[in-house]
C-alpha cells in the first residue's frame, strides 16, 4: 500500500543540473533548486557539450504555448534555414499539446502557475548553411503570471531567474492586440521585464556597466488581428511602447521587433453552458521563424 517517490537519499546516480549546476539525483525527476527536469540535464550531459540556452518569456495570454508549439513544429520540419531536433520525448509535449488543440479547433489550456508542472523544451537548433553552429532552444513553457510575479518579486520563482540568467538569447512575446488596446499596462510590464533582465544578468554574470549583449527578439504575437503590428513592428513599438523602446536602447545592445501570427482568424463561440471560447478557424503562420533566425545570426 505504501510506495515512495525517489529522492536524492535513495538514488545512487546524480548529475550536474544543466541550468544551475547543482547535483541532481536522476531518479528524483527534478533539480530541487531550479526544477529543471533531470532528463534534460542527463541528455545534455550525455551529449558532452554545454547547453546554449535560448528561452521564451511573455505575459499571461501573450501566446507563448501556441508560439512555442508551432515554432517547434516548424523546426521539426526544417523550414527555411533552420531545423531543430527535439532532445528527449519530453521536448515534444508542448508541440503535441499545441498542434492537437489547434487540430481540434481550440487553443491549448492555460499553463499552470506551478513551476513543477511546466513543460520543458529542449530542441537542438542548427542552420543548414552553417552546420557547425548549434544552439539549444531550452525553455520551460512558463506561466505568464509567474513571470509577472517574478518580475515584481525577484526570486519568487527560482526557475525563472536561473533560466533567464543562463540564457544567451531571449524571445519576448507581447500580445499585439493588448499592446494596441492597453498600451500603457503592456509598456509598464515590458519595461519592468527589461529591468529585471538587466538585474538578473548583472547579478549572475557580474556585469557592472554597459548594455547587455544578449540578443533579444521582441515579438508581437497575434499580429494577424493587428495589421499595424504585422506591417511595421518597429513603428508599432515606437508608437505604443515608448518606454520599452527607450529601455531597449539603454539596456540591450542587440534587440529587434518582430510580428508573428499562427491562426489566420478566430471566432467566438458560446457553449450551451454559457461559456465563451475563442476558436481558431484555420492555421496561417507568418513571422514565426524570423525572430529565431535573427537570433541565430546574432549568436556566434
Amino acid at each position, binding site marked *: 500500500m505504501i510506495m515512495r*517517490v525517489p529522492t536524492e537519499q535513495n538514488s545512487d546516480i546524480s548529475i550536474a543540473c544543466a541550468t544551475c549546476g547543482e547535483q541532481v539525483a536522476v531518479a528524483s525527476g*527534478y533539480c530541487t533548486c531550479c526544477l529543471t527536469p533531470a532528463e534534460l540535464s542527463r541528455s545534455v550531459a550525455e551529449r558532452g557539450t554545454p547547453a546554449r540556452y535560448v528561452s521564451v518569456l511573455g505575459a499571461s495570454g501573450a501566446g507563448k504555448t501556441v508560439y512555442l508549439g508551432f515554432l517547434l513544429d516548424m523546426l521539426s520540419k526544417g523550414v527555411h534555414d533552420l531545423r531543430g531536433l527535439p532532445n528527449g520525448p519530453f521536448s515534444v509535449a508542448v508541440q503535441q499539446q499545441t498542434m492537437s488543440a489547434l487540430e481540434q479547433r*481550440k487553443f491549448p489550456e492555460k499553463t499552470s502557475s506551478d513551476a513543477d508542472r511546466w513543460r520543458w523544451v529542449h530542441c537542438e537548433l542548427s542552420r543548414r548553411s552553417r552546420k557547425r553552429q548549434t544552439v539549444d532552444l531550452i525553455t520551460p513553457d512558463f*506561466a505568464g*503570471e509567474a513571470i509577472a*510575479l517574478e518580475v515584481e518579486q525577484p526570486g519568487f520563482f527560482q526557475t525563472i531567474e536561473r533560466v533567464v540568467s543562463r540564457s544567451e538569447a531571449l524571445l519576448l512575446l507581447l500580445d499585439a492586440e493588448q499592446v494596441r488596446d492597453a498600451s500603457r499596462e503592456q509598456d509598464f510590464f515590458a519595461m519592468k521585464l527589461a529591468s529585471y533582465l538587466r538585474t538578473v544578468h548583472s547579478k549572475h554574470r557580474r556585469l557592472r556597466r554597459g548594455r547587455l549583449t544578449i540578443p533579444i527578439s521582441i515579438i508581437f504575437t497575434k499580429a494577424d488581428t493587428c495589421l499595424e503590428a504585422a506591417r511595421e513592428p518597429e513603428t508599432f513599438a515606437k508608437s505604443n511602447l515608448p518606454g520599452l523602446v527607450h529601455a531597449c536602447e539603454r539596456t540591450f545592445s542587440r534587440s529587434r521587433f518582430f510580428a508573428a501570427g499562427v491562426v489566420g482568424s478566430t471566432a467566438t463561440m458560446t457553449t450551451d453552458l454559457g461559456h465563451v471560447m475563442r476558436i481558431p478557424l484555420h492555421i496561417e503562420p507568418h513571422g514565426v521563424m524570423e525572430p529565431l533566425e535573427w537570433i541565430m545570426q546574432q549568436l556566434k
Partner: protein
Amino acid sequence: MQLEQAIFTSTAAGAVQGYHLTARSAGVNEQLAAVLTQWGPSEGALPEGSSAAESLQAFPALDQFVVISRTMYGGPEYSGRSGLQVVTMMLVVRQEEFQHFGGNAIELAELARARGMLRLRGSVSESLPTLRFPDRPASRFANTRRVLPPSDEQRMRAALERLRAGERVLVIGCQQPVVAIRSLIEAIPEGHRRRFSFSTGLRPSLQRPYQISMLPTQESAIRTAGSPPGLCVVGEG
C-alpha cells in the same frame, strides 16, 4: 474574533492578468499576500474529470497565522481558452484564536461554511471586508461524527505513521477525505496542530508543500513519477 479573507483566481482585471490574489481584506498585508499567492492553486491543480471537484486546505502562514481555504471550479477561464477557472476562497485566522478550535481546521471550516463563507460568489470587489466569527465552536457536545470506512481508517493510520516519521504523504482513494482528515487531526496532539498542513483534493506540487495531500484516484501523471520527490504514497499502488 475576526477573520481576514482573500480570493485567488484568474482574471484580467487591472494591471495583472491570470492567476493572482484578486481580492483581499485590509488585514492581508503584502507579506501575507505573497504567502497566499505562493500557496494559491492555478490551472490544473484540481483533478480533471468533474467540474464539481473541490478541495479543502489548511496551512500555516508566517508564524502567526493559519490559512483555511476551499478550492473549486468557477466559470470559464477569462481568456476564452478551454477550461474552467480555479477559484480559491481563503480565510486567515490568528494562531492564538485558532487554538480555541482545538487547532482543528476542519472544525473551523465547517462552521465557516455554515455561516456562508468559503463559497463562490457571483461578483467580488477587490476590497473584501474583515469577517466577524464566533470565538469558539458552536457546541462540543453536538458533534456528530461520521463513521470512517475501514479502508479510510487504514489509510489514515498508515499516513499518520509516515507523518510521525517526518515524511510528506499523498493518500489515494479515500472515500470521505474531509472526515478522514478530521480523524487524522484528532489523532495529532493539539500542540502539534498549529503547523499541520493538508489538502483534501489538490494535486501535489512543490510550490504547495502540504504535509498530507489526498486524491480520489491515482492519476496517470502521478503514476508516471510526476509527483514531487520525497512524497510517500499511501493507497493505490
